[in-house]
C-alpha cells in the first residue's frame, strides 16, 4: 500500500517535471523553426555546392 503510494507520487512528480520540460522543448523547437523560416535560403546552397 505504502510502496504503491510512493511509486504513484514519484510518477506524478516525474510527469510534472517532464511536462514542464516538454513545454521548454516545444519552445526550443519553436525558436529553431522561426529561425529556419528566416534563413530558408540556406538549404538551396547544397544544390549549388554539388
Amino acid at each position, binding site marked *: 500500500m505504502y510502496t504503491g503510494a510512493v511509486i504513484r507520487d514519484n510518477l506524478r512528480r516525474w510527469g510534472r517535471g517532464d511536462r514542464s*520540460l516538454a513545454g521548454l522543448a516545444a519552445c526550443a*523547437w519553436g525558436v*529553431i523553426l522561426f529561425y529556419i523560416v528566416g534563413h530558408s535560403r*540556406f538549404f538551396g546552397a547544397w544544390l549549388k555546392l554539388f
Partner: protein
Amino acid sequence: MAAIFALALLVSAFAALQRNFRLRPEEAWLYAGILSCSEAVLLTLGLGLGGRLSSGAVCAATWALTAAHMVLYFVPQNERLGRRAAAAPLPWALWPAAAAAVLVLGIRLAIAGAVPPDSWDGLSYHLPIVLRWIQQGNLDLAGWPGPERYYAWNGELLSAWLALLGGGSLSAAKLCQVAGLPVLLAAAGALGRRLAGPGWSWACGLAAAAMPIVVIQSGVPYVDVLYSAFWLAAAAAGVAWLRSGGVLHMGAYAAAFGLALGSKSTAYLTAPLLIPLAVALWSRPAARREFVRWSPLWVGLVALTGLACYWRNWLQTGNPIFPFELRVAGWTVFRGITRPGDLLVSMEKWFFSSMWGWAWYPFVETIKGQAVYTYENGFGPVAAAAWALSPVAFWKAWRRRDAAALAFLALLPLTAALFLIMHPVRVPRYVIFLPLVCIVALAYVFKRAGPRLRTAVLAAWALAVLVGVSGVADYLVRNDASSYAWSELRRGRSVDAWRYYKDQFLSLGEAWAALDQRLRPGDVVAVNYSELMLPWSGMPTKARVVAVRHSAVDYPGAYFGATDREWLDLLQKLQVHYLAVWSPSWYKDEGDLEREAISQLPARFRSLGKWQDAQMGSIEIFEFLPAVI
C-alpha cells in the same frame, strides 16, 4: 607536414594524460589540447626571444616534446588508477547533423587550403607579423606602423609554430585556427558532461565545433576561434576543479586562462573566468588549502602562457596595455595614446541600429540587411534556442543549488555586460564564447529529461546544426572567389591564386600580381598604407614588406619621414626596391604626400603601373632607383 607534427603532439599528450590520470575522455582530450597549445606557444616564444626561430629548431623542439609525452606514457606513475569513465556514444539523432558538419568543415578547409591566405585582418597584420618573425628568426617588430605590434600574440605564436613546422611557408599558418577546434569540441563536451550528464557531451561538442562562424573562421587567419576555444577551455577546467578538486584540473584551468589572456587584448572579457576560482575558494575549504599550496603553479602557468605580451609592452612603453590608456577616477594608471572609447563603433550598425539589438540578434542574424553568415557573424539556430532558454538554466541551477553550474552560467551576463560597456568594436565574432555558454546552458535545462523527450530535443538540436552548416555552405558558394575555388577543386584543378585575389580585391589584386612578376627573393617593398600588406611580399612569399609613411606616426619606433629628405633617406636605409602607393577609396588623401614627394624626385622613382577602381581606390607601383653620384 605541419599537421602531422601537430597531431603527433596532441595525440601523445592525450595518451600520456589518459595513462597517468583518471580523467573523463572529454577532459583528457581537453587537457591534451591545452597542454600541446601551451607547449607550442612557449617553444615558439622561447626560440623567438633567443633569436633562433627556424624550421629546424621548431621541428626538433616539437619532436622532443612529443617524445617526452611518450616517455610519460610508457613510464607511468605509481598511481593506482580507478575505473575510467567511458566515452559517451554519439546519440543516433545527431548522426545526420554530425555527418553534414564533417562534410561542410572538410569542404571549408579544402577551399581554404587551396586558396591564398584570405581575410582583411589576416592579410593586414596576423600573417604579416608571422612572416616578419619567420624572415628575421626573432620576434622583433621594430618599425611596425600600427597598434598591432602591442596586441596579445598567442595566435600569431601558434601560427608561426605551424608555419615553421611546415618549412616556413604560410600554408599551415593560414589554417592556424583549426588548432582551436579540438579544444573547442572537447571543452564544450566536457562542460556538457559535467553539468548535464554524459548524454549531452556530444551534443554540446558538436554544436560548438559546428557553429557556423567557427567553421567559417577555421579557414581564415584570425584569432577569434582560438580565443573562444581557450576561454571555454578555462571555463571547463575551472568547473572541473570546482566540482572535483585536484592539481591537474587547477593547472589546466590556469594554463587555459593564460592562453586566453595572451590570445586577445580583451582582458576584461577574460577576467570573469576567475569566477569558478572565487566560488571554489569561497565554498570549499579543501579548494582553499589546495590553492594556497599550489598557487605558485597557478600563477606561474598564467604568467608563462598569457602574460609575456603584456610584459613586453611594459618593457617597451611602460604600459602593459599599450596603446590603450587606463584612467580610474580621473587618475591615469597607464599612459597610452588611445582611449578604447575613441575607437570605431560603426561596425555595430552592420547588424542593428541600437545596442539593444543584441538581445534580439541571435534570432535574426543579419549583416547589412541580409540573412547570411560571414566570418564576422553566424552563431546559428542552436545558439538562438539556447539564448531564449538560458534564463531557465539559471533558474534551474538556483533551484538545484548547483554552485558549479551557477559559477559557469554567471559568465554569460557578466561577460555580456562587460562587452557592451567596455568593448569598443561590437561585432559578434568577438564574443563567440557567449553562444557557447548558452549551448551548454540549454543542455543543462534538459538534464533531467526522459529518454523520449531527450530524443525530441536532440532531433531539434540536429535540425538546428544542419541549418547552421547549410548556412556555411551558402557562405562558400555565395562569394565569387570562393565559388570559383570550389569549382576548380571539383574539377581536380589547382586554384589560380592571383585570380582569386583579383576576384576579391579587384585593382589591388591586379597590382599585387603585377609586382609579383618582378619580385626576387630578398627584395624590400615599402607601402604607404599598411592594410592588406601580406600579398605585396609575393607568392610564395619572397620579399620583405615594410610600411613607411611620409607623415608623423604616433606609435613609437614606426618608420616615417616627416620631410621629403627624411622619407627618402629612410627608404634608402631600409634598402627599398619597390614602393607601392595606395590611396583607398575610404581614405582618398592617403598617399598624397608620397605622390607629391615622388613628383619632386623623378630621377629616383620609375612608375611601373597604375591600377584603380571605385571600390579599392587607386594603386601605383614605383621602382626606387639608386642615387646617381
